[in-house]
């Protein structure tokens, strides 16, 4: 089979090939022109993206000192890693990581599995109405996240949503918003919203699989399943990894869905996810702690996504 060569080919990452850029001999004029063109982007990027990171990191090392009733002037003093310690000892903040981990470990593989199957089905030669289905699957992603979340919050509520009524009509009494069911409810919202996007990423990768390969496979007698398993899936492995990394980061940063549902769901606290917990601190005017929590959150997202990449790279090298 051609599978091994293909996956070996695909797993050559740009990072592994070290091509030293040639020393460019641009004239001063060209360089100035380049800088001029880059300036609008760089100014916005530095001021809106890079500066806030460093400001947050800077803030996370300070704390506000007040005395007595606190009505006088307060001053900001350097506190080293104190905010980080406070954040780590804050059980609400740490529990929020447990929740997104729990949601992610079930939801991400499930969603990517569905996305992959849908992409393969769309890619197969026999599927009718390809364009319509592609659009229908992708449609939920086109909904603004907050609006979708509000819609789901209506659907889930036992008093006004239809699901509870339908289910109780057949004898199943379920409340989608209790502290145990809410994990599934949020997972369902995420799956509904993002499967289409991931499907599209994988589907576009499938388009790039050379037709000769699948044709050769079918000449060799491989059916739909064998072609998918041995040719198509290895070929789109990088895309699957990419969608997985995006999904991991997205789950760690979970905010919209639980924040909207929290208004009606007894099972969602105001510190349900890490971002909600950090927001809570900034709402309480404790920007220093909020900054520390944000930095921790960023580090966790970084470690998880890098860790996953490293893990899959090693697995890819082994096979």
């Amino acid at each position, binding site marked *: 089979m051609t599978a091994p060569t293909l996956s070996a080919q695909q797993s050559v990452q740009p990072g592994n090939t070290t091509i030293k850029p040639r020393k460019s001999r641009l004239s001063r004029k060209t360089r100035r022109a380049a800088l001029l063109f880059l300036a609008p982007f760089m100014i916005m990027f530095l001021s809106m993206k890079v500066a806030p*990171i460093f400001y947050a990191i800077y803030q996370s090392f300070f704390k*506000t000192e007040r005395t007595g*009733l606190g009505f006088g002037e307060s001053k900001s003093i350097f506190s080293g890693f104190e905010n980080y310690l406070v954040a780590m000892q804050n059980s609400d903040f740490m529990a929020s990581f447990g929740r997104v981990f729990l949601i992610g470990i079930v939801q991400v593989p499930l969603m990517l599995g569905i996305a992959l199957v849908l992409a393969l089905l769309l890619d197969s030669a026999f599927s009718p109405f390809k364009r319509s289905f592609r659009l229908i699957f992708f449609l939920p992603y086109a909904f603004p996240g907050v609006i979708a979340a509000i819609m789901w919050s209506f659907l889930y509520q036992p008093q*006004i949503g239809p699901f509870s009524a339908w289910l109780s009509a057949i004898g199943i009494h379920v409340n989608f918003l209790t502290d145990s069911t809410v994990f599934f409810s949020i997972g369902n919202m995420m799956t509904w919203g993002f499967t289409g996007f991931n499907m599209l990423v994988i589907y576009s990768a499938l388009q790039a699989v050379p037709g000769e390969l699948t044709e050769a496979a079918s000449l060799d007698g491989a059916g739909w399943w064998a072609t998918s398993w041995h040719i198509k899936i290895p070929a789109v492995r990088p895309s699957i990894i990419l969608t997985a990394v995006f999904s991991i980061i997205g789950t760690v940063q979970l905010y919209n869905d639980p924040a909207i549902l929290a208004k009606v769901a007894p099972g969602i*606290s105001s510190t349900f996810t890490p971002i909600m917990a950090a927001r809570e601190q900034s709402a309480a005017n404790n920007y220093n702690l909020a900054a520390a929590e944000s930095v921790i959150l960023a580090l966790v*997202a*970084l470690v998880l*996504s890098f860790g996953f990449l490293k893990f899959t790279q090693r697995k890819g090298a082994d096979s």
Partner: protein
Amino acid sequence: MATRWFKSAATAVAILSATALTGCSGTSSTDSRPAGEPVTIEFWGAAVGLEKSADIFNAAHKDVQIKYTQISEGSAGGYAKMLNAVKAGNAPCLASISYNTVPSFAASGSLEDITEYAKDSKDRYSPAGWQLSSLGGSVYGIPVDLGPMALFYRADLFQQFGITPPTTWDEFQTAAETVKAKSPDAYMAPYPLRTDDIGALAWQAGGNWFGTEGDAWKVSINDEPTKKVANYWQGLADKKLVVPEPAFDTAWYTSLQSGRIVSYVGAVWSGALIAKNAPGLKGKMAVAELPQWKKGEHASGNRGGSAYTVLKGCKNPKEAAEAAVWLTTNTDSLTSMIKETGIYPAAVSGQKLPALTAGSDFFANADKTADIFTTAAKNTPDKWVFGPNMTSLSPKMNDGLKVAASGQGTIPQLLDTIQESTIADLKSQGLSVKE
């Protein structure tokens, strides 16, 4: 590697900037002005239609002019914007903030002490409102409106069940049992899911969560009256006489209209919200005095309401404070606010304005509602003090009430937890706490 690092870094940026990047806009009202030009007082608030009151003020004044800017609701970022502006040194002079936020603003050093400009106006306001705008003997704001409490009930269903509006909390419980007996799917009232629900009821019972003694805060969230209120509602919850449905949510309005919930203990402003979102209840709802702990009393609690405060750094605090007093006591300005924003004035004169006493014909006893709320406002204890950490206390208590409503733990237990965590919270901020 470089590109992947870049992607992750970009993600990190996105997360960080969510909390670090906060809007800082607004122009300074504090710059020096040439002689002869009027003082411009910048004014931030979330209320719709407040610019009309500003126009009325501007028409009546030559040397001081108000420039009103409507910003987002405090909890939706409005307060963060104000605090950031104070930090950046370009805050407006006047800011409208809710009573329960006044202490946290003051304790973050964001408010000017306006005692010397405002103290002579004290008698023009309801004592409860004045108390809520002051802290530790200093005045930090001018009271604008109040949220006196009453009982909103389905008059038609009460009649059908043979219930007369309860005058005491004992009668309220008996009525709740009757409701359950007559209609098993119905509930007397929603479960108190919000910090404000418990706070306002504790207030009526004579409780007080905070206080100042010298240079230290006193914390008493689990005081005797609050415990009494907590035990009472826990009892109703244990008997399944109340139902945890978040007030003012779509489902809640549906429940009010369908008769699943037959009454609501709420503040004066709830009336307009119910009228707007449950129009089918016109003529079916009525208002009664809040049930009492002792028969024959008329005590009420307060829920909501706000003060106009002078933010730190204002160059014209005297003019700003005087403008705030004018806006909140002038007949035309108050009439406009009653009509535009539906406030219940904290100014004593405002409570007698025809715009208010006309009442809404939404309620079956429209002719009596104004009297009920005036009596409630007059009989709201004026000892209540909010703490400097309400912004972190409220979400914590809301979370706890949600959990208690689902049957894990009780409201009295929650009070003890919040008492402890609040003391720890204040101490961690470097504030003195007297225990």
